[in-house]
Each structure stands twice: as structure tokens, then as C-alpha cells.
């Protein structure tokens, strides 16, 4: 073992022979001075990604804005949905509508049709907001139409009574 201790000792002596404390301190001082200087390279490094990041953010924002302005609104699809619902509705309840004077009024005056259409649309939008299934939309509309016809009839009856 002592042979290898001697070997270590020899290695240490050889290493220390070339070792100069002043050179070591000088090198260290230089490194410390570099460390203390505000690093310009670091600043440029941070600046570039910052520019790239802000550009990406700006592009994303512009993209989002363009989708708001240039893409067709969901209203078109809503309209199609309403038309389909109407087709279903009238195929099932066409006879009901024919039975009531409301249908006669709708046929007679365009403004009344317009009002009617929008009242139906409002009902559909309200139902859609609640995420009701399509079958429910048809059923609910049917109920609304029946109720409105019933109320209309009742009101007419009431006003007739009052007139008496």
C-alpha cells in the first residue's frame, strides 16, 4: 500500500511543480470580472425570443380577429336547422295549423308571418340554449303552437263575452 501512497505523493509533487498560484488567481479574477459584467450576450439572447414570442402572440391575435370578421357566423347553420325543424313540424302538425284561424291570418298578412317566424325562432334559440335535443324542439314547438292557438281562441272568446 505504501508503494501507492508514494505514487500519489509523486503525482502530487509533479502536479504542484507546474502549478502557479498567481496564474490561478489571475485566471480566477478574470472569470469573476466576466461574471460581474452585465452580460450583453444574455440580453441579446433574451431579446430575440421575446421578439419572436410577441410576434407569435400578435399573429395569433390577428388570426382570432379575422375569424370573428371574415368567417361566416353560425347564424347560417342555425337558419338551416330552423328550416329543417319547420319542415318536420309542418309535416306533423300541418293539419293543426289548418284548423285554427291563426293559419288563415299568417297566409293573409306577410308581416304577421314575419312576426310568427321570429316568435318561433326565439323559441328555438331559447331551447337550443338549454341544449335540448332536436326531438324536444319539435315537441316544444308543437306545444307552443297549440297553446298560442288555444290562447288566441280563448282571448277571442273572452273579448266576445265582454262585448256581450
Amino acid at each position, binding site marked *: *500500500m505504501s508503494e*501507492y*501512497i508514494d*505514487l*500519489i505523493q*509523486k*503525482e*502530487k509533487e*509533479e*502536479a*504542484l511543480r*507546474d*502549478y502557479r*498560484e498567481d496564474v*490561478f*488567481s489571475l*485566471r*480566477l479574477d478574470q*472569470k*469573476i470580472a466576466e*461574471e460581474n459584467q452585465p452580460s450583453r450576450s444574455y440580453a441579446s439572447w433574451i431579446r430575440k425570443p421575446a421578439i419572436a414570442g410577441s410576434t407569435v402572440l400578435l399573429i395569433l391575435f390577428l388570426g382570432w380577429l379575422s375569424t370573428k370578421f371574415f368567417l361566416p357566423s353560425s347564424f347560417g347553420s342555425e337558419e338551416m336547422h330552423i328550416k329543417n325543424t319547420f319542415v318536420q313540424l309542418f309535416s306533423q302538425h300541418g293539419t293543426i295549423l289548418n284548423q285554427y284561424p291563426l293559419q288563415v291570418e299568417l297566409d293573409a298578412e306577410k308581416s304577421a308571418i314575419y312576426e310568427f317566424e321570429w316568435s318561433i325562432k326565439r323559441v328555438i334559440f331559447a331551447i337550443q340554449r338549454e341544449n335540448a335535443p332536436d326531438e324536444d324542439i319539435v315537441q316544444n314547438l308543437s306545444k307552443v303552437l297549440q297553446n298560442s292557438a288555444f290562447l288566441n281562441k280563448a282571448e277571442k272568446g273572452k273579448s266576445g263575452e265582454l262585448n256581450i
Partner: protein
Amino acid sequence: MEILAGIDMIGYTAVKEKKSQVFEELMTYQKKVFLICLGFSWNASDAQDLAQEVYLKAYKNIGTLTELSLAKFWLFRIARNTCLNFQKKHRLDRISAFEMTRKIKDPQTPESEMIHQEQLRLLKGAIQKLPKKQRDAFVLKEYGDLSYQEIAETLKIGLGTVMSRLNRARQAIKEQIKGD
């Protein structure tokens, strides 16, 4: 408020000066640090670079040092950790072993020098093969010339543990060299 700020500034300056003094004191151990690095590495050139890195780390982190009286052991710990990280990154055992072998095979080298280099290569290889804890104790003792107490403080272990690790390390080196 201004008076308090003034006192605070004085306190801050005093601490800064104290830390500067501590760093100056740490600089007196540069040869020890260099030799510790030599023990962990394969050549003096790497050891010099490692010692520079150790002091740079110490300079950067001297603010985190709470016990100024234990700064010396803190420095030795930095040395040990820096060397271990260096070994992990550069796979010293393979690269430098090749360099050492190349030196030995150089036909210009005298025979005695070749024998010396071969013995040194065997020893370095044996040190590298030691379990980490044993290697720490061995290098700090044989290269850094630290006392048992200093090793215990540096590695934060008991005196008995230092002795047993050193004993096992020496035994292992003996066996490895015999085996080679």
C-alpha cells in the same frame, strides 16, 4: 427611516466585507482544492480547470453561506461535487484512460517513466472504481491531506465512519491493483 436605512446599509456593507474576507481566506486553500480535484480527475490540467470552477462557484454562492466559520468545509464539499459532476459529464474514466495508455505506448518515453505511468494508471483506475463514499474519503485524505476530523466535517459524517470508509477504500484499492 433614513437613519434605519443608514444602519441597514452599514450592516449590509459589513456583511459584504466579511464575506469578501472569507473568500480571501478560502483562496489560501487553493492548493488543497487543486489536489482534491487532481484526486478525482486523471490529469493536472483538468484539475486546474476544476479548481477554477470550484472557486467561481464559491464566489457566486458565498451569499448562501450562513456559518462563515465552516467555510473551509463548504469549499471542500463544492470541490467534491464539482468533480463528481465533471466525471458524470465527461466520462473521464474512458477518455483519459485512453490518453494515459497513449502516453505509455509512446516510444520516446523512458522505460522507468513508462512503468511509473502504468502504475499511476492502475491506481487511478482503482480509485475510479471505488464506491462513491469510499472514494470521497480516500481522495480527501490522500490527495487533500485532510485530517479525519476535517473529512468528517466536510462529508458531514462521524469520525468512526470516516475511518471505516478509509480502511475499506484502502483495502479495495489493494485488492483491485493485485487483481489487475
